[in-house]
């Protein structure tokens, strides 16, 4: 039997040595997937520079944000959901519902400053509804959001099956607005909004209790509950955010194209999920960054850009390359997490 409290100093040292020995890997392992995506982007960009004239224009990069503003907004919302270990399949349909509804209401002469918050609120409410079903009825996110997909898409098609032009003055003004960046480059409002969403989301995830709860739930929802974290509130909130971001994506689309269409956004949910995964967000939850998803969207955009520059390539190549990249990144994630065990 040992003595009660006189801990010998030697044992302390041994304990400290034990602690150090027990370290299995360096903490920066969590950055490996995001660094891999960054490296991939750089390689793609350099290959573009080498192969094509005019690829060195700043507008190539700036236009990535303009052309992918919708996907970027949606991918940010999706990142929140995936970080909790969930998935949101409804976002593409929420985009189509938003664009159709906004265009129809504007056509009907509703004031644009009412239409804008209304459609954003609708998206958020849809998300909150799905989140509540997922949490309180313990429904798989896949199924609950699949139902949301059908509901939103069906509503959009019910409102109008055709493309609806937008003639509203404010919308057209926003669409035509160009924000100068430096001397020669300009960009659209939509690109700025999308970028702002990324920055706000990154701040929320890194610096607020809500953000950390999102990570905790993704790590282990049971533990989070036992640690007294507001699991219900947080889980519903991430789907609300995702719904809001999808609605925002829809609004950005109507501004970009000054029209709404019920088939707009078909498959966007899959592009968003792919962007998150390529950006290093772990599908099982608990690991990843909004900036990773940003990089994932940029990969998407850059592939399209390169195909456009090449000129004679089939657009299907975007999908083929994304497919290959997805396989690669999923394997990479598996390797990294296995090493972490």
């Amino acid at each position, binding site marked *: 039997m040992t003595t009660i409290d006189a801990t010998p100093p030697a044992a302390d040292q041994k*304990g400290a040595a034990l602690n150090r020995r027990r370290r*299995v890997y360096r*903490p920066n392992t969590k950055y490996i997937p995001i660094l891999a995506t960054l490296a991939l982007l750089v390689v793609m960009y350099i290959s573009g520079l080498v192969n094509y004239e005019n690829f060195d224009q700043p507008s190539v990069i700036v236009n990535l944000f303009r052309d992918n503003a919708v996907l970027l907004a949606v991918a940010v919302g999706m990142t929140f959901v995936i970080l909790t270990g969930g998935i949101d399949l409804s976002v593409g349909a929420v985009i189509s519902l938003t664009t159709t509804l906004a265009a129809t209401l504007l056509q009907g002469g509703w004031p644009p400053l009412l239409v804008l918050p209304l459609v954003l609120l609708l998206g958020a409410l849809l998300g909150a509804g799905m989140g509540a079903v997922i949490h309180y009825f313990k429904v798989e996110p896949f199924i609950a959001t699949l139902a949301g997909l059908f509901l939103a898409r069906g509503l959009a098609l019910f409102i109008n099956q055709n493309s609806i032009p937008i003639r509203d003055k404010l919308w057209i003004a926003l669409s035509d607005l160009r924000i100068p960046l430096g001397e020669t480059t300009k960009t659209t409002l939509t690109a700025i909004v999308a970028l702002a969403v990324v920055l706000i989301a990154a701040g929320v995830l890194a*610096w607020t*209790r809500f953000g*950390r709860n999102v990570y905790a739930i993704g*790590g*282990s929802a049971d*533990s989070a509950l036992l*640690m007294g974290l507001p699991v219900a509130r947080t889980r519903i909130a991430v789907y609300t955010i995702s719904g809001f971001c999808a609605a925002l994506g829809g609004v950005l689309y109507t501004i970009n194209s000054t029209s709404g269409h019920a088939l707009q956004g078909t498959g966007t949910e899959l592009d968003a999920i792919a962007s998150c995964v390529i950006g290093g967000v772990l599908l099982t939850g608990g690991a990843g960054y909004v900036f990773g998803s940003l990089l994932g969207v940029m990969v998407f955009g850059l592939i399209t850009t390169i195909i456009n520059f090449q000129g004679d390539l089939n657009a299907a190549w975007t999908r083929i390359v994304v497919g290959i990249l997805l396989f690669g990144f999923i394997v990479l994630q598996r390797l990294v997490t296995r090493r972490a065990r």
Partner: protein
Amino acid sequence: MGEPATNPVLEMTGIRKVFPGVVALDGVDFRLFPGEVHALMGENGAGKSTLIKVLTGVYGIDGGDIRLGGEEVRIAGPLAAQKAGISTVYQEVNLCTNLTVAENIFIGREPRTFGKIRWGAMRKRAAELLQRLDLDLDVSAPLSTYSLAIQQMVAIARAVDISAQVLVLDEPTSSLDASEVEQLFRVMRRLKADGVAILFVSHFLDQVYEISDRLTVLRNGQLIGEYRTAELPQVQLVEKMIGKELATLESLEDKAQQSRTKSAAADPLLRAEGVGRTGAIAPFDLTIHKGEVVGLAGLLGSGRTELARLLFGADRPDQGELSLDGKPVTLRDPQVAMKRGIAFSSENRRTEGIIGDLSVRENIILALQATRGWTRPIPRRKQDEIVDKYIKALQIRPADPERPVRNLSGGNQQKVLLARWLITEPRLLIIDEPTRGIDVGAKAEIQKLVAELSDGGMAVLFVSAELEEVLRLSHKIAVLRDRRLVEELDNTAGVDADRIMQTIASGATS
């Protein structure tokens, strides 16, 4: 029974908890004083977990009352328990390993200014807190980079930082190695000195005697007593836990001696030399002869199952050598073991053995089919023949081969499981707890069967928590304690339950 000078911080009186068909706790009293480590002792099903779950608010109670600091309280849930000052650290750590050490301690309570988390302050406070517990960790590293032992201590740090009155440690040491246990005990002593009341559950008697001041023994949901650890010899503790008076045990032994006097002069079948697996069981030597029944005795968690699994290839030993018929063998996996004539009937017949939705026939035929490979199905007529024979031989009831096994009683399920292995005609049959949870009649039948098999030349490794059963059946008894084979006894005149209990309790080879 001694009583500390202060008042108890926690007092549970007459606690009663009923589950459908079972009284899990029947009028149990439990007291916890500030600055003590109090061990809660009992075998499987004694009611330890239930009592802890009552205390931590997972279960409500059907009777009795709980007083914290003299005030009667109702604990509505884990969060309410935490608020009231009762924190629990479970064996499986309930933290988020993807977050950093500091976050795990402070999540939900992060220091903030205007809603923004002050990471620097949080890390600093986490480091200070861990320093007080003698832990030198990188608080900004993800928790997953640390061993389970460290994760547990981080959980303890979080628990005591939230509320430092009562700390419940439910089997914290079961997957730690010796130096990690020592580290945990240092932390516990530090907390004890700070006046924290610690409820400690462990299956390791040595640990209980090393760390605890007092202990409470439960058996079958009833309070056996509360004792000062230093004043209760280990043998008496084991007696109280197992609950058989030595006198009753002695009468059983006479029968045992009569039936199992046969000596093991036969050839050795399986010999283990220095076989062990880190974290599961210390290296041991064991020889099993043809036609011999070797009993494995020891308390729950003493390493009985772990030893058996090594001999079946379910786990691979990381040291030592196994030889079969004098030739070295490597049992890479259970399939290899089965091909060599070793069969293993698992202790968890529900989860690892019986497939409830398949019929009796399908369950019995399973292992034989597996050894033949799925490309060579056993003809139906042959199947029926074999199955009928064993249903008769083992008296499986109802004697209907097409009935789903789910609908059979526990004892009959166990016989189906035995039949499954017997038809593979093993040379060594390993049976882990075959009689647990089945009625007396079926128990006797299974025991009789084991004896007959051994008379027929089959070697049997018989694992059981019930000493009298081991004594009755075995030619030789290997006694395990704290994951170590401490003694091997020939089941001759001098060996009785008292003798085995001595060994279990003290570990000494007297």
